[in-house]
């Protein structure tokens, strides 16, 4: 639902990263890291990007998303684990506060430019 805002920020960051000395740059791939817990819908983001990158060096760029798993740490017993379900209690000691180590990422890791 807020994918347009994310797409706009993504375009700003990606365009900034293109070196000035490249003539007619064309971005082939946008590599992102998105946590499984992050509220981002891939096809909405891809649709928004398609709309706003028209006539820019990012037009037609492929979106490659690395999904980052949800990992947690128990602050009581220091146990660390990965989960695929929204039950975030510590499986080892069953008590204590948990901290989310990963799973909320919404990051751009790189862009790939066409060689031509």
């Amino acid at each position, binding site marked *: 639902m807020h994918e347009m805002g*994310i797409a706009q920020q993504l375009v700003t960051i990606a365009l900034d990263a293109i070196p000035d000395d490249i003539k007619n740059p064309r971005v082939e791939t946008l590599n992102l890291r998105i946590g499984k*817990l992050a509220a981002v819908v891939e096809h909405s983001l891809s649709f928004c990007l398609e709309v706003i990158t028209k006539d820019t060096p990012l037009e037609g760029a492929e979106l490659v998303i690395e999904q980052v798993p949800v990992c947690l740490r128990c602050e009581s017993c220091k146990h660390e684990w990965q989960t695929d379900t929204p039950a*975030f209690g510590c499986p080892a000691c069953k008590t204590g506060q948990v901290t989310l180590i990963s799973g909320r990422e919404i990051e*751009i890791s790189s862009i*790939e430019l066409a060689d031509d």
Partner: protein
Amino acid sequence: MEIKIQRRILEKNKSDADRNRAFFKEKQVFVLNMMSSPGSGKTETLCRTLEKLMPDIRVGVIVGDICTTNDADRLSVTGAKVTQINTDQFGGDCHLAAHLIDSSARAMGCDDLDLLIVENIGNLVCPAEFDIGEDARTVVLSVTEGEDKPLKYPLMFQVADAAILNKIDLLPYLDFDAALAVENMGKVHPGMPVFELSAKTREGFEPWLLWLRTRVKEKLG
């Protein structure tokens, strides 16, 4: 040619939120971000909360809605300082981003406030993703929703510091299993306090008010 970047896409919002945090620290005001799905009774819960907190605690409210000033009108009756943000002029956004809070909080002036409550837009998805520079977050769930909402929207319940289970006066008329709802919140966020109350009948407010007063006092000293 690959160009490494390694940047958070929402870093602009994060830096806006950090600026808000510094502003709120300077102004010595505690900021609560209140979130929920539409119709859970955030505004009514806030009205009852303000009645109890004021005038001992000086409260201001920033209300976010896509359209209308209905919630601001209801809250103004309590005597609190109220500012409405309508996001339709920004494309009908489904959440309040940090820069909107920045302009509203500065326009409002926070010198005469101890507590600023941001009533976010009714939505269990997007507001959870946007840091606004708050000190604490509360999520409101009502008994007319499903007990499995915490499992369906885990990020919201994970980022919340406390939850309110509202409309408990309706429990005798519904099949809603309150214990299961509380259990599900505990699964997503172990240890999170859950306050069961009714904004309509005013029952169950004391533990919630005590939690909020304590948090405000902790910051203001």
